[in-house]
């Protein structure tokens, strides 16, 4: 069995977002780029599954659609433990375009399990995973917080409103994963960092695909009014304000 983990290269989640070029892009000055948090959890789970010999997982490959500047993020994934990587050499114009590229790779290299994070922390789309599956005509399970194999069959836990469901789907499939899939992201050990340098990163040129969406400009969220402070000795005043001023209770 071969697992493919899709990774997105995003600004560290504590980054203060600033814009550039007349608000049409973000200002990348000083940004620390990281593996999208949910993708990092998917990678961790893929490696945990591979560690258990009973699962008979031959390889964990990471794929990224993006320019060469994303190489450090890809190397980080290799340092954490992925066996090899593929980079599709193109700007990820939108989710549709990105999914088309990854679907093409899956068609060629025949992966059995494709893992995607439930969203990327930059565009918050929750789109790429489901799109890959539809391009390939294979099942997808979303909001997955657990993945294991029982007698070679994938067993997934997915979040539903008010609880969770255990489901199974035949491979190949896409699992769109969220919190819970792995406890903590795995951290690269020194040995991993050393070996990552020599692991293969295959660079593919993109297939033709017309993106369907485009971001024209960004704006900051509307500023909130300054905080009104209420004396800790008289919190009843807060309840009055919530009732009469904000009218929310």
């Amino acid at each position, binding site marked *: 069995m071969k697992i493919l983990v899709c990774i997105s290269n995003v600004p560290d989640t504590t980054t203060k977002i600033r814009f550039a070029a007349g608000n049409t892009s973000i200002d990348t000055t000083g940004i620390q780029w990281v593996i999208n948090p949910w993708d990092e959890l998917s990678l961790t789970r893929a490696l945990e599954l591979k560690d258990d010999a009973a699962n008979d997982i031959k390889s964990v490959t990471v794929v990224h659609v993006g320019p060469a500047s994303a190489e450090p993020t890809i190397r980080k994934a290799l340092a954490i433990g992925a066996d090899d990587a593929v980079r599709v050499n193109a700007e990820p114009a939108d989710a549709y375009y990105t999914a088309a590229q990854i679907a093409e790779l899956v068609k060629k290299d025949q992966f059995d399990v494709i893992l995607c994070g439930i969203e990327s*922390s930059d565009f*918050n789309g929750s789109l790429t995973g489901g799109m890959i599956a*539809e391009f390939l005509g294979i099942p997808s399970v979303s909001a997955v917080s657990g993945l294991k194999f029982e007698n070679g069959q994938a067993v997934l836990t997915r979040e539903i409103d008010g609880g969770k469901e255990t*489901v199974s789907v035949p491979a190949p499939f896409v699992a769109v994963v969220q919190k819970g899939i792995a406890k903590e992201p795995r951290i690269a050990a020194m040995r991993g960092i050393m070996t990552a340098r020599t692991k293969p990163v295959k660079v593919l040129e993109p297939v033709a695909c017309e993106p*369907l969406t485009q971001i*024209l400009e960004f704006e900051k969220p509307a500023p909130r009014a300054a905080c009104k402070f*209420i004396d800790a000795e008289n919190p009843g005043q807060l309840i009055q304000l919530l009732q009469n001023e904000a009218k929310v209770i």
Partner: protein
Amino acid sequence: MSVLVYTENWDGKFKKLSYELVSYAAGLAKMTGSSVTAVSVGNVDQAELKSLGDYGALKVISVSDQNLSVLDSQAYAAVIAEVAARESADIIIIANNNAGKAIAPRLSVRMKAGMASGVSRLPVSLNPFTVYKRTYSGNAFAHMVIKSPVKIISLAQNSFDLVKTENTAVVENVAVSVDSSLVKTAVKNVEKQSGKLLLTDADIVVSGGRGMKSPDNWAPLVELAELLGGATACSRPVSDEGWRPHGEHTGQTGKIIAPNLYVAAGISGATQHLAGISSSKYIVAINTDKDAPIFEAAQYGIVGDAMKVLPKLVEAVKEIKK
């Protein structure tokens, strides 16, 4: 041309979110000069289906098929695409929730329809078709153009007010052929709490952070939430410690919520936490540190120990409920 809205049901019932979606679709139909058709999948009775008309759906298409008893994203996308084609829908509205996130991306590829998710307002412009959507986990918003002839929008929950209309919906029961070989998801087990207010549906949320010191101190927080008819939530460290269930974790990697009132007790307000709550209409912060970042996001603040302040708030709410 029409605006098609997918209205999920929960055990045969719609909820506020369903009517928000229909109200949004009606607002959009008014802008584009078209009409709203809702599509419902599963067993929902006539009165419930007709209730979508109260918010502007002229037609309600009800599809029920035993192959659709399990949420299989591939099968659901195929069914909604078929209805969309039948209705010549050029805009499709869906919720940005668990089911919406499972179905909509597949629908997008199937119909070659560009999609914007987490939209919180009516389009900024129709030509080019530009929507306002959340990016960078709420730290920025983007004006996104959808270029394809058919467009899909997923609406952020609690971002659009309900608008009642004087309107009667026509209900059509439609048989859509569902290829059973398409349904590949088999459900083995379901663990579900019914009857409990969902965190994502709650208008009022009372949430606790590490400043609550110990899981034993939660009683006044829970009581306040109950008195206000709200739900309880927590910050990530609290769920990681196992003080509260994981389902209560709000923040970037947990649940993203947008209640009318969010009370943060003993939460400092790290960027990742704010990413999950910044769309709340009002935020109240209670924290001992007057410089905590949560006060920058809050409209009302109390500098004090949450464990001492919460019981007093409980008393004050009881007072006004008398």
